[in-house]
């Protein structure tokens, strides 16, 4: 896709966050509507901190965050209405069933009950949760819990889906289902920004890839763009990633 022809779904400008040391350092990042954006980087690069600031779980020290044209820092409730967040550790309620969990999420997002239920049934079907829809989540495997959490993230039909390592610990079948659902969302016009350590996933799924190190975006673009930056067109994303991160480390 030629991203620049699409409206901006997410814009970060000069976003900074400091804990003991700078975790995110004057970061500029743009994700377009209908785009699948993968954010990759070494451990401690600032990926999760960036995403947690976008969804309102952390407040940046400086900079601006704009989601679907809404200033997320001055009007967080409106920004959250069009956003979904899914972390690597699925946080669901053990004593609720997937069906009840989705009803709860729909209530939080104030979705029309009839539409929400239809959407919930659709998601439950897509993710293969139908036989377990009325069982409490307490006995579920990690994969099933992640699927329930993903259904919760999608039940309110968000325009921007933000995922932090959503495929960690999932078996191949479950990972495929999650990827299929995300692709479907992007095809339907939604935007996805996802961090991952699995570079093959970024390589296969993402329209654009951002490489972050030391809290800064050191490279960004399609796979070809990144290859061009390193001058090695035949290299895999893994080679390109390691080369760019090594250059950044030396420069730092």
């Amino acid at each position, binding site marked *: 896709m030629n991203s620049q022809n699409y409206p901006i779904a997410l814009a970060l400008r000069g976003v900074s966050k400091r804990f003991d040391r700078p975790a995110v350092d004057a970061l500029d990042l743009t994700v377009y509507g209908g785009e699948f954006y993968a954010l990759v980087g070494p451990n401690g690069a600032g990926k999760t901190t960036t995403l947690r600031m976008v969804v309102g*779980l952390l407040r940046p020290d400086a900079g601006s965050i704009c989601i679907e044209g809404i200033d997320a820092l001055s009007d967080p409730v409106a920004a*959250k*209405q069009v956003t979904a967040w899914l972390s690597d550790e699925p*946080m669901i*309620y053990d004593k609720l069933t997937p069906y009840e969990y989705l009803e*709860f999420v729909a209530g*939080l997002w104030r979705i029309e*009950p009839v539409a*929400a239920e239809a959407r919930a049934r659709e998601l439950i079907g897509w993710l293969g949760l139908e036989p377990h829809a009325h069982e*409490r989540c307490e006995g579920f495997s990690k994969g099933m819990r992640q699927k329930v959490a993903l259904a919760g993230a999608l039940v309110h039909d968000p325009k921007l889906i933000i995922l932090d390592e959503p495929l960690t610990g999932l078996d191949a079948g479950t990972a495929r289902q999650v990827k299929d659902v995300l692709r479907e969302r992007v095809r339907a016009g939604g935007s996805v920004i996802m961090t991952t350590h699995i570079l093959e996933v970024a390589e296969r799924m993402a329209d654009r890839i951002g490489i972050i190190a030391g809290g800064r975006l050191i490279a960004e673009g399609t796979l070809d763009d990144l290859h061009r930056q390193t001058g090695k067109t035949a290299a895999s994303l893994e080679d390109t990633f390691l080369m760019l991160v090594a250059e950044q480390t030396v420069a730092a």
Partner: protein
Amino acid sequence: MNQAASLTWLASHEFRLGWRDWVALMTAGGRARARNAGIALIVVAAFMHVFAYWIVARFADANLASDTTALVGITGTLMLSGSLLLSQAMESVTRAFYARSDLDLILTSPASAQKVFAVRMGRIAAAAVAVAVLLASPFINVLAALGGPRWLAAYGVVAAMGAVATAAALALTIFLFRTIGAKRTRLIAQIVAAVIGAGFVIGLQVAAIFSAGSLSRYVALQSDWMLRHAPDTGSAFWWPARAVLGDYAALAAVMAFGVSILAAAIVLFSRRFGEHAVAAAGVSSTIVRQRRWSRGFRRRSASRALRQKEWTLLLRDPWLISQTLMQILYLLPPALLLWVTFRQGNDSYIVLIPVVVMAAGQLAGGLAWLSISGEDAPDLVATAPITADRILAAKIEAVIGMIALIFAPIVAVLIFDDVFAGVTCGLGILSAAAAATMIQLCFRVQARRSQFRRRQTSSRIATFAEAFSSIAWASTSALAAAGLWHAIGPAAVAFGILAGVWLVSPLRN
């Protein structure tokens, strides 16, 4: 034999784990808190000795020549303590069965599982004995200081009681596993533990209410009926009491009985422990189906969705219900007293109202922790399009709603008989619950609901503030119900506690 599999090696391993658990419980995992915890323990021990002096000093001269009244009193006290010990031991045994922790390691190692579990049961017994001795020590020390060293024999009786309580807890829990299965045992065992813990106290109070219209359990123990029907002073039934009074033959018999019963229980049940622990570990993967509702999704606001979620989670968690059951159980005697009073038309509300208000404050504290701090999906709630203030408000409404539901019947009956007493009680309940909730708000931390049991260790200030606030509101309500302006005093103390909590709140700083 390999040293790694020897009984002493396993025992030292188990006791090291037990010691570290205890230290973590005391210090909430913070090394820096160890010194403060030590100082707090010394202060509490000193306070307990003063309290014990106030309670037992007048009994220090009792001796073996004492009449049946003394024997009944001591035996009743031992039975009261024994029921609490048994309750605690059942809690520990159930927790040991359901704690998966090192189960896989034990069962896949070449060490004898029976031996490992026997040592583990020994650790539970040692912990029960240690707690019993620790709690009894201020009273025994005071009696020994005033009445002579013969009272130190009571330590032996208390240790024997701890051993018997552990053996009984093991037998009861294994019985539950065999009769109702691993899935239900956890819930039933905890309810049984709560009922045993409160049952004997409540039973005596019920007897006292019917015989003397009083909540004091000792009224029943010293009644003519009790003394008339008590066994002869030479009976073996009095051996534990005689042992406490310094009869060394009785002490030897009581201790031998305790050790034998515990040894028999360990030998008998260690074989089954692994089998039941494996069954218990599999419980989390069992499927619990909820009734399928055909009504579809309901229209509700975000606040209502949050309140409904809190209530559903609480009602579906038998473990949490049993944790709070004890507090509600203690409401039964006051409720009964209310009924008896109402029937007889005299005014005992001054006794009843503070008990109810105190219970409401304590219950609200627990519920507030669950609702405010014990959020299992914090990211979901925090990323929902609803303001943080609205989320907190909904959670507070869930707590107050639950308290209102539980206490409304008592207040309604009171209002029916005496409007002023009923309204005072209702306001007291509301104040105590609101204060406990505010304290939890000031000290809120992100935690999982499963950490409920250890909530007291995360902030001792919150724990003590909650207890003293409930006591202050209970006193206020009692004095107000009596029509005394002195109620302003404890009310001021209650507000002072809240102000203090606000000032030291970690969220404010």
